[in-house]
């Protein structure tokens, strides 16, 4: 049964240095507050897994928390590049970042395999792409594609993660992708009840699969209620599938929680200027890690709340894109 604890305690107890951590939320319900707590607790050598590493992973990567990233699309949605991610890949700053790259369909199926307790999933995909070629050559012994040497790791080691497989019924050649089995899943949801049953709705992405594929989980919620009345299209994670629940109102900001908050689009635009240079990013990071820094806003954006990233003095706000 899930334990209801503070966010600080949940992160302290669930996430260790070197863990493989999947923070999921497909453009909605992104667990920003939990990610910021991981930065404040200075976790290191994490393998970060996420289909769409956007601002939250840009922040974790820039803060030096990650040694490897497993992903399928890394950008600032509607704005542009992730500058900290690019700086890590292109210049190894602040530390080198190993990457393992997939398509969305491949990543989604890797989570499905993990949740299903299977070693791999099957799909029609990757044929003819260099993603496939890269993984086929990916013996992590260097070579044309600059693969890195193997590093022993709990669940995500060396070797290809995409391989051909023959259908035993038709003989057709399909594509197999290896399961992802994170140590910890971190997600944000609208609500939980006092037994730790979790309910989320709207765009629910791959969160259910991420939690079920992981050994442990941390779920932040907008509110804890006596009873979870039904919502159309809701996903329910029974409390016995969840390790820790922490109430963090606004914990998805600048992303949103349908029915509770709206996306703070200005933050995404402002982040571009902050993340562009190491110096402005480092100031942002110092402020996040200072006492009381980076707490989620207590009122929704657009309602006069503190719905902005800590802004370095003089950082320009780029105009509408």
């Amino acid at each position, binding site marked *: 049964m899930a334990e209801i604890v503070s966010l600080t305690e949940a992160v302290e107890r669930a996430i260790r240095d070197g863990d493989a951590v999947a923070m999921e939320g497909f453009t909605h319900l992104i667990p920003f507050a939990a990610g910021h707590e991981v930065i404040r607790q200075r976790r290191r050598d994490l393998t970060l897994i996420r*289909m769409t590493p956007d601002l939250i992973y840009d922040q974790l990567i820039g803060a030096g928390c990650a040694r490897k990233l497993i992903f399928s*699309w890394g950008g600032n949605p509607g704005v542009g*590049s992730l500058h900290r991610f690019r700086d890590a890949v292109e210049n190894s700053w602040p530390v080198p970042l190993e990457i393992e790259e997939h398509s*969305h369909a491949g990543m989604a199926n890797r989570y499905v395999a993990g949740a299903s307790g299977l070693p791999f999933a099957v799909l029609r995909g990757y044929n003819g792409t260099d993603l496939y070629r890269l993984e086929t050559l990916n013996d992590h012994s260097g070579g044309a594609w*600059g693969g890195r040497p193997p590093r022993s790791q709990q669940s995500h080691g060396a070797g290809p993660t995409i391989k051909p497989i023959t259908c035993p019924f038709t003989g057709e050649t399909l594509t197999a992708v290896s399961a992802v089995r994170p140590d910890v899943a971190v997600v944000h949801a609208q609500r939980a009840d006092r037994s730790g049953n979790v309910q989320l709705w*709207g765009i629910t*992405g791959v969160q259910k*699969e991420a939690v079920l594929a992981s050994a442990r989980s941390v779920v932040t919620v907008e509110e804890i209620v006596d009873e979870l009345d039904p919502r159309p299209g809701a996903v329910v994670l029974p409390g016995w599938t969840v390790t820790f629940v922490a109430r963090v109102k606004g914990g998805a900001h600048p992303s949103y929680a*349908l029915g509770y908050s709206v996306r703070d689009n200005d933050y995404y635009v402002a982040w571009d200027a902050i993340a562009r240079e190491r110096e402005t990013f480092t100031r942002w990071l110092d402020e996040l890690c200072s006492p009381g820094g980076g707490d989620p806003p207590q009122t929704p954006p657009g309602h006069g709340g503190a719905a902005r990233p800590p802004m370095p003095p003089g950082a320009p706000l780029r105009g509408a*894109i």
Partner: protein
Amino acid sequence: MTYTADEMMTVSGARALRDGMTCFVGIGLPSSAANLARATHAPSLVLIYESGTIGAKPDRLPLSIGDGMLAETADAVVSVPEIFNYWLQPGRIDVGFLGAAQIDKFGNINTTVIGGDYGNPKVRLPGAGGAPEIAASCREVIVVVRQSHRSFVERVDFVTSVGYGSGPGDRERLGLTGAGPKKIITDLGVLEPDPETLEFTMTGVYPGVSASAAKERAGWDLAIAAEPEIIAAPTPAELEALRLFQGTRARSHQ
């Protein structure tokens, strides 16, 4: 009415979609064009986004593929594994509408890395997202991309999503079920694959665009149709609808 090259491109993209089609919509330029089509000649166009929203009916331009408005107006909202496995993979969707950072003469798309090598690229791009399987499994694909020496290359630095591979027969050999890219829509005109060689050929140009200008803005010896169609300028209704969308998008940032 005067208009910009980008507006012409978006209008041209919208015109490529027919009413009643099902369309898997990529982020950025394709989303603008698909929403414009729905607002003008194709009110029954079914917009499908990889965030799992099927039949979204946004009344302003969504800022991201996970905009709350898409979920609130959709016929159905499904999980990400489901959108790819049940909806895209079996070939149910008529047209995949994609953008590109680089595209080559066989319509292969790169959104991964440019320059250097993979381990040490000159430019790191966002990566694949849903595009490889959209390009493989939609019945056909339309690409919207601004045309330049940098974006139009002889051979892409990295094949993120397959067009016609290295030419005729490749899609069949690779087992890709969709027919592949049927149009590349740029800010200069429209390209279509040559029926024999599958090499993309400029078959239409916008008013005032010369064949030599189109040739100059391509990194390969771009073939131009003998008599390229002169594509009609945007109508006042098209421009009005587009600007209304863009206005609402700009306002939603304030």
